[in-house]
């Protein structure tokens, strides 16, 4: 690990951390629930980035697997939230008949 990579990784972490702030603001501000889900999705992506950069800075390759894991979970979370939104907004299902 030479100085150039370490320097670039630190700079990249600073930039990604800067990006966390507008997303967090969108997550809090909404206004619709769709906005919040999108912000959550974006936070997952930023988490992938931060995990990859942590791998570089700490020198452990294992953190790259964590990035892969976050990407997996983020996709499932997005689809689950989408189902939830759609279900919640659909008309209530009629009572099952005996």
């Amino acid at each position, binding site marked *: *690990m*030479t100085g*150039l*990579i370490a*320097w*670039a*990784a630190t*700079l*990249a*972490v600073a*930039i*990604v951390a*800067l*990006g*966390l*702030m*507008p*997303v967090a*603001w*969108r997550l809090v*501000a*909404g*206004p*619709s*629930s*769709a*906005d*919040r*889900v*999108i*912000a959550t*999705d*974006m936070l997952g*992506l*930023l988490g*992938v*980035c931060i995990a*990859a*950069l942590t*791998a*570089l800075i700490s020198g452990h*390759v294992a953190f*790259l*697997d964590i*990035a*892969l894991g976050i*990407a997996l979970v*983020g*996709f499932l979370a*997005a*689809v689950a*939230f*989408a189902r*939830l*939104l*759609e279900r*919640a*907004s*659909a*008309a209530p299902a009629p009572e099952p008949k005996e």
Partner: protein
Amino acid sequence: MRTAIEILAALLLVGGASVVALSALGVARLPDPFSRMHAAAKAGVAGAGLLLLGAGLAFGTTGAILTAVLAVTFLVITAPLASHALGRAAYVAGAPLGSAQMSNALAGVLDRRAFDIDPAPSARSRSTKRLSRDDESAAAASPASQQPLDPAGHDAAALDPAPARRILCCLVGGESQRAATEAALDLARAAGAQVTGLSGAGLEPRVWRGPLPIGGSFWSDWMTTRSRARIRQNCAEALEEFQSLAAGTSGLDIVARHEEPEAAAFAQLLAGQDLAILPAGAGPHGMPAEPAMELAASLAHARVVPVLRVRQWPRHVRAVLLVVGDSPACGALAAGLLRSGLWAAAPVSILPVAEESPGAVAMANEQAELLRRHGRGVAVLPALDADFDMAVAQRLLARFDAAVMARLSSRHAGMLDSLRICAFETVADTVPVTLLP
């Protein structure tokens, strides 16, 4: 070699981080959920992918590069799926559409809730601040007019002709503007209605794009400023004509106003009116447009208010044509005509257009029955095939002074589709006045 790879890795790291940060900025700043999603899905995945590749290269081991490539592949495969599911859910949940409001291609395809399950107080207060007193009554009136029409017309009370009390005349300029203005004044004189001449339709309010003259946004701003100036010129000419024509008539309640509202505010402004009159061939940016792209078409698509599209204004309407296609909205045309109270004395002919399915003929007969019950002279014409002869059709259509249609064009976007002849467009180009209830 080793240094070159390290420089490449460093560039990928910093570049990827910058793209991700920009996409985060987009998530925060873009105006509606759908454009925010577009920032998160595309730019976010691109940035994260670059950054992961950079990290893999920086380690240099096969395992690290393989893991990074795997993660990128996974992101690229899943991002479209996730954002498609999210977009569909957001649409169904009723998230605000932003500027896509006026051309909502999914209307009637997917059910859509009126309000999001989480309507934030901030969004509410902002929109109520923008509304004036007139618009509040307009917003109160809109749910009734947005209810679907009873296609069979069993509800007799709803079919009583209700003459228009408030008529909106859109002043957008163009060849047919004078005819449209005359139509608005004539109809108002007949019904004693209030006329509002609204110029500036289709203009979006100016957005602030930042202090620096850098990049594409600066030039797009410059171009919108140019086209805005041209539209305003057209509007001013149309407004002047409106006022000079209105000055000749007395005893009419006439208002002229210039508004450059957002799409949502514009729809609310329209909802309080009973009839909107637009010149034919006027596109959304003050330029001549194809029937499918016209302001009248997008207004009719929004289903806020009946739209009267005027190419020429005949003083006396001898015959009315009802063009029935196969879309569900065509089943309510007769009801819309009866309710508008227009052309009460003219005999009606019904023209089924059997472009895709045979349902149009059945729907035409149903509506003929309804019109006969209301004492109108009705004739059902033979159905028009998909490959009709243009000259014959135009000779047939020349008899009619007014047409009632559900839409101006049945074209879908597509290269080969533009070669097809479209019955709706032929009618829109031949018959002087078109009512889109």
